[in-house]
């Protein structure tokens, strides 16, 4: 294992200190309990938005704290959900009197810990709503699984819900917008190499030199199948139909196309993936009207990517375009 770390036990806290120093214009970091909060929190009269989850997915979620997006992010240990106490503390820290929305990726640990925190917050007189993101089409949503995972689409839920809160929507309206984005966004990923959790010291799964995992989750959890490595276009040809045919997205739809890197794949390869995905959408008469390419929901040093498609309407487009000022997304301000 080669990593730029000191002690595996200190990875999350030392990174948090780094974030505090690097982005002191945007956020402040509470070290104990650990959460990253917008510098001007709580914003009076505005719905507060809190997200969080295991570390190792940076810039998710801490990189999305700031004007127009999250009010706070709660990082857990690497790939492990934070406990309820810091979530509760972050919820208090962002409550400006208009209630707080929790945006939670659909992983059992995240859901249970945020649920417990929300119950505690309600017991202390706060108003909390929760939206569970489950955009990963690799997992069949059925009684037989924990349900679809929340993956890269979470960034778009956070961006658009954040804009809705910033323009003054009330808690119900912000939650409804977040639900709507979740209903309109679909993602599927591919993993080329495993990743190593620092305190584990060895890969959490293995892939042969020429093997890839289609439908991989953001912690390297398995997806639909393992196949031999193929050219990028062939891989995109496998992923995109699952994404597009699920809602489904049809000819005439306007969409946002988001190609997300898992951390270890260079941007040059992400653009090759983007090119093919855009071609396929064009062939189906689907108009790509907004785009995002880069490492936004990473899985440590894993090589691979995910493709996310969000169907837009005028309101979602306007909210996506609205100004945002965070460490990882910044425009219009």
């Amino acid at each position, binding site marked *: 294992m080669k990593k730029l770390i000191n002690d595996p036990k200190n990875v999350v806290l030392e990174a948090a200190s780094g974030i505090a120093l690097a982005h002191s214009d945007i956020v402040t970091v509470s070290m104990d309990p650990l959460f990253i909060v917008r510098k001007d929190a709580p914003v009076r009269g505005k719905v507060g938005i809190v997200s969080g989850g295991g570390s190792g997915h940076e810039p998710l979620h801490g990189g999305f704290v700031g004007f127009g997006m999250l009010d706070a992010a709660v990082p*857990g*240990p690497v*790939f*492990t*959900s*934070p*406990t*309820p*106490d810091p979530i509760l503390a972050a919820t208090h820290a962002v409550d400006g009197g208009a209630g707080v929305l929790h945006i939670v990726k659909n*992983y*059992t*640990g995240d859901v*249970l*810990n945020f*649920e*417990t925190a929300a119950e505690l917050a309600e017991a202390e007189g706060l108003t909390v709503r929760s939206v569970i993101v489950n955009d990963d089409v690799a*997992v069949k949503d059925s*009684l*037989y*699984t*924990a349900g679809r*995972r929340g993956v890269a689409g979470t960034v778009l839920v956070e961006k658009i819900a954040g804009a809705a809160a910033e323009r003054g929507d009330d808690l119900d309206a912000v939650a409804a917008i977040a639900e709507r984005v979740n209903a309109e966004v679909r993602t599927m990923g591919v993993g080329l190499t495993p990743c190593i*959790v620092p*305190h*584990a010291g060895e890969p*959490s*799964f293995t892939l042969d030199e020429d093997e890839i995992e289609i439908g991989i*989750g953001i*912690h*390297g*959890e*398995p*997806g639909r199948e393992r196949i031999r490595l193929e050219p990028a276009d062939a891989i995109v040809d496998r992923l995109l139909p699952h994404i597009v045919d699920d809602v489904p997205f049809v000819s005439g739809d306007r969409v946002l196309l988001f190609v997300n890197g898992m951390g270890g794949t260079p941007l040059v390869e992400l653009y090759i993936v983007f090119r093919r995905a855009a071609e396929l959408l064009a062939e189906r008469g689907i108009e790509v009207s907004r785009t995002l390419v880069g490492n936004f929901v990473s899985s440590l040093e894993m090589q691979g990517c995910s493709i996310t498609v969000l169907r837009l309407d005028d309101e979602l487009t306007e909210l996506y375009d609205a100004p945002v000022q965070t460490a990882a997304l910044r425009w219009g301000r």
Partner: protein
Amino acid sequence: MGLTGEWARDWVTDSAEVIAQNRVALITLDRPIGDGDHGENLDRGFQQVLAKLDGLAPDATPADVFKLVAMTLISTVGGAAGPLYGTAYLKAAGAVTGAPELDGAAIVAWLTAARDGIVLRGKAESGEKTMIDAWTPAVDAAAGALADGRTEPEILDAAATAAEAGALATEPLVARKGRASYLGERAIGHRDPGAQSTALLLRSAADVAAR
């Protein structure tokens, strides 16, 4: 003789030791079908409980000890195991609040409450390859041993033995909850780490009661 607050403290101390000894084994079980953090997280949690044990009043009841375990695990373990085990100990405490000693009926009551709490929080049923598959056989075996007029240590021994068998029996199952559910058929052949840690903790409870 019923189980006292001293038994509960000793159980915590022994649990922390057993979980530390099995940290790597639990990580190894969790890696292929979960995310490899179960041993790490549970070890961290029980070490914290251990550190807080001395802060309890000398006359703390078993329920007081259970409550301390619950609150500490909820706030230190994370993942799914934190809220699930935290809820289990919290409900166990609720079932025997105020009792200085636990007789056989009280043991069955707290085991049942703990299991019901996990079912409620995790929304899992038997046969879904979760810790429920260790807890439910344990509850049933304890109830059976109570009906047979067994002693308190024997009731816990029956629970632990059934939990161990239950954990083993998760190996051929397909998971329907938690991260392992994403594996489908690929989960077959792997033992559920949560069922295994349940078996370890209940075995520890029985061992300490038999001393």
